[in-house]
């Protein structure tokens, strides 16, 4: 199977740029990155079909080897639809985030920060015990401890 090297190079560039953008904190850039990733992978699937061929419509008497492989095209079609839906959803979410916070960045988890700032000291478990834990008292009401009269 021969491979189209231009397609492969473009795929590489798209994926690299896509992953770079996804690592940004700005949501719009993340979205652009995801779109690039989607396109890059679709191109990769197209590359797996091998070299150019006739349209994959059946004609009797034609050698199967001259047809283009139709399966990758079907896969891409599905993948495009899915990427489209996810992009639309992400756009809506980014817009909502903008409405709420006037911010276009990935926010930090406040609970996470709280946990990471909290000290190892635990009030429930590490606090020193109160001195008088005994329930036994002598006639005058003073607590009685082990080893005492």
């Amino acid at each position, binding site marked *: 199977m021969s491979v189209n090297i231009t397609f492969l190079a473009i795929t590489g560039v798209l994926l690299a740029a896509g992953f770079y953008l996804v690592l940004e904190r700005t949501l719009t850039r993340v979205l652009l990155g995801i779109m690039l990733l989607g396109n890059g992978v679709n191109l990769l699937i197209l*590359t*797996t079909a091998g070299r150019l061929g006739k349209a994959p419509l059946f004609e009797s008497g034609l050698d199967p080897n001259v047809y283009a492989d139709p399966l990758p095209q079907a896969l891409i079609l599905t993948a495009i639809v899915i990427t489209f839906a*996810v992009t639309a959803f992400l756009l809506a979410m980014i817009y909502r985030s903008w409405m709420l916070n006037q911010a276009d960045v990935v926010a930090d988890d406040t609970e996470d920060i709280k946990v990471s700032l909290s000290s190892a000291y635990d009030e429930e478990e590490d606090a020193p015990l109160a001195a008088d834990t005994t329930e036994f008292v002598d006639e005058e009401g003073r607590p009685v401890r082990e080893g005492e009269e």
Partner: protein
Amino acid sequence: MNVAQLAPLAVVLPIFGAGAAFLVRRKIRQQRAITIGILAVTMLLEAGMLAATWNGETYAVHIGGWDAPFGIALMVDGFSSFMLLVSTLVSMAVLLYATSQGIADGDEQGPVSIFHPTYLILLAGVSNAFMAGDLFNLYVGFEILLTASYVLLTLGGTAERIRAGVTYVVVSVVSSVLFLTAIAMVYAATGTVNLADLAVKLPELDEGPRLILHSLLLIAFGIKAAVFPLSLWLPDSYPTAPAPVTAVFAGLLTKVGVYAIVRCETLLFPGGALNQALLVVAALTMVVGILGALAQTDFKRMLSFTLTSHIGYLIFGVAVGTELAVAATIYYVGHHIIVQTSLFMVAGLIERRAGSANVRKLGSLAKISPALTVLFFIPAINLGGIPPLSGFLGKLGLMHAAVDTGGVLNWLVIAAGLLTSLLTLLAIIRVWARVFWRRAADAEEPTESLVAEAKEVSDLTFQGGAERPQLGSTKAREVEAIALPWGMRWATASLVVAGLALTVFASQVFAFCQRIAAELVAREPYITSILTGQ
């Protein structure tokens, strides 16, 4: 005609149900009726499928009459139908819980509900993934359930949920991109995406390309299954969602990833080229997850961390790879789905009862909420692995298989597993001691309503004295019945009972898991039945 031939209905019914539920979107009662009805029918169908595959039968359904490996095939074997039935059972319980919550909160007057249709779509995706006979259909199943989960996770669109949703969506999309890349490469290397066909053709590849395909698929599934170091998105995003949504996510979504990993390791890449790496990853998943759980003060976050931690046991079983280990893994998956979901439902109940899931604010619940206490206690010690419950049995099976295999690394992972089990118990005990046992007044940040209720109950007990010792607890039950609708309590109770049933019928279930595991390891009759179309 066999029940298994009706397998496509497990995907089609929920999708049609979603459409119908969307059409009646302004009438919440009809929506509920449709959703519950569809789920009940699906559950019956899947019970029939499980019965049909109980003795190790495997059925392939070729959609549209296209023969394998060209058409889309749905596979129904013991493993698929077991996962299908458990997942539908769990979603039914969560749906009843959500419905009861909705009725109690009077959501008839609320905004248009998108919850029911999306919930059905989620189930359709899960079912599709469990039955997929080819990699691309598995991808489509994943996408259906992920897209539905995006919507469910961000229900209501509050700031906190949008923040969690962004992380979740971006991580999921990246994992999907990796999966799609893996599919493209598999297709380029073998010229097929059909699982059975791949099982025949992948071993013929050279070592190098096979290893690349193998690790790429495992990374893609590993993100979905929340395996360390790809698990950190999960505790970040799950706890903010509404309680029923978190419960169903915890039960189903990661397990779909685990299912894919099991299939990948047994069917596509037998021989365990990456087993050593998987063992290390399993140990890290367990230990890092549970250490995270110990640091949390929010109950739901703590549960999310134990969820990722116990995924480690499943990966452990897969990595050991013997028949017994795979059988124990399947048993443990069933246990894990049921127990984690019921605990998240309990977390929802606690939040509703006490106004918060933060353990620093809670206390006295054992006194003022007896039913809730029982509902928490049983799945909690089950999660902690106390004998004779199913958590213990599953771990015992895994350890047994690992000891049989031997080797330094296996023993190290066994040690990590035991440590994790112990630390899980510690995490559970801490919640128990704080939320249920101590006095509400002793909490770090006492909640006034809890303190008042606890005082009222103990005053009543004191007044009742020796003649009427029940006075206080009767009052507590009355107050609890008002705070927690009976539907929510019974839905949770039904799952707790399901968890106990897994213990009581352990020998039958485990024998079934062993039959499944034997088939999975032998890779027959899966391959022949899909290729010959029986």
